[in-house]
């Protein structure tokens, strides 16, 4: 009897269809953890959800802005505008293949005021933007060949604000395009969020601090407010700012010499000096912000100090 010489297991590579007992579902997008090309969660930090999340929290304070995580946990609506797959037809009208399109979403954001939204619009047109997808049930990206969890490649565009009227509230919308058409299917990987864990309460971005300064005779006086809310920053962290570490004068750590009524005094030599807050991570080490509650970053001011 002759035998046909071909592999017997013809379905190799096809997905099996046994039903799982436990699943992770793609439910609702609740947030994005924005970052840039180059950021990734190393395989060594993917042992469990909490280790992974701690890595992300720490990255919110990263000194290098391009290696930082910028949480955007204010998504409250999504419209899927992804184009229908393109079918390739044979001459006789049979479907010969299907080409899927990149994901296109219109996302509605929680309102945090126009100044906050102005900050978000600084992302428009930025190259190399990446993001981890935060679903109700998981945080997702894709695994590279090293087993590291990479953020998804995307374009984000914060649209013109849509002012409200009698019937509608003001809407802040953005467009999100995932470059990989398989980002939410074949290439999706990530970690399930444990029950009861609320991502938006556990990870925050940096708040801008606006410093102002006046040079005097052998001294300079500095004040600081939160850039958007205008709350007094020095008042909020009065004791913490009077320490060794939170201030940089000409790039070197310097203690303030006095603080009164939210004015910080530095005694300095005559000449021009550059003053700013230390990096977010150094501030956090001094009790000013943290990787779980969000940190702070300031502008740099230049003051001219007179000899007499």
């Amino acid at each position, binding site marked *: 009897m002759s035998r046909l010489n071909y592999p017997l297991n013809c379905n190799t590579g096809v997905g099996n269809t046994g039903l799982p007992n436990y699943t992770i579902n793609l439910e609702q997008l609740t947030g994005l953890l924005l970052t840039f090309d180059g950021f990734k969660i190393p395989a060594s930090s993917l042992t469990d959800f909490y280790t992974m999340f701690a890595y992300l929290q720490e990255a919110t304070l990263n000194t290098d802005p391009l290696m930082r995580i910028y949480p955007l946990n204010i998504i409250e609506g999504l419209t899927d505008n992804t184009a229908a797959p393109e079918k390739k037809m044979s001459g006789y009208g049979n479907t010969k293949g299907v080409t899927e399109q990149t994901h296109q979403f219109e996302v509605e954001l929680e309102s945090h005021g126009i100044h906050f939204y102005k900050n978000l619009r600084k992302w428009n047109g930025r190259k190399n933007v990446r993001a981890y997808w935060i679903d109700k049930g998981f945080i997702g990206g894709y695994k590279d060949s090293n087993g590291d969890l990479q953020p998804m490649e995307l374009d984000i565009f914060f649209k013109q604000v849509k002012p409200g009227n009698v019937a509608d509230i003001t809407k802040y919308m953005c467009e999100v395009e995932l470059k990989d058409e398989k980002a939410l299917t074949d290439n999706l990987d990530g970690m399930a969020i444990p029950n009861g864990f609320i991502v938006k309460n556990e990870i925050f971005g940096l708040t801008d601090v606006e410093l102002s300064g006046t040079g005097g005779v052998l001294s300079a006086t500095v004040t600081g407010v939160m850039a958007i809310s205008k709350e007094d920053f020095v008042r909020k962290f009065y004791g913490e700012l*009077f320490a060794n570490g939170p201030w940089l004068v000409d790039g070197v750590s310097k*203690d*303030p010499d006095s603080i*009164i009524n939210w004015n910080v005094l530095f005694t300095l030599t005559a000449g021009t000096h550059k003053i700013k807050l230390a990096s977010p991570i150094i501030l956090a080490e001094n009790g000013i912000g943290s990787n779980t509650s969000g940190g702070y970053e300031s502008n740099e001011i230049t003051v001219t100090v007179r000899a007499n």
Partner: protein
Amino acid sequence: MDAIKTKSGALISPAMFQKSETEFIKAFPNDFKQLMFNGASLKDCDAELKALYAIHGKVKKRVKKEK
């Protein structure tokens, strides 16, 4: 850093008390002095600073002598 706290709530670095009395008083700009002493005249502010220096500056000197 253990700051010296004044009655008005101002914090002053101990390093400031290492200066001479004249330098110490001159180190505070006029508007800063007036914030420290609730808008008192500059003459009164200087007197207050002198009194402050007398307490904390002297302590430093005494400690040095004992050593």
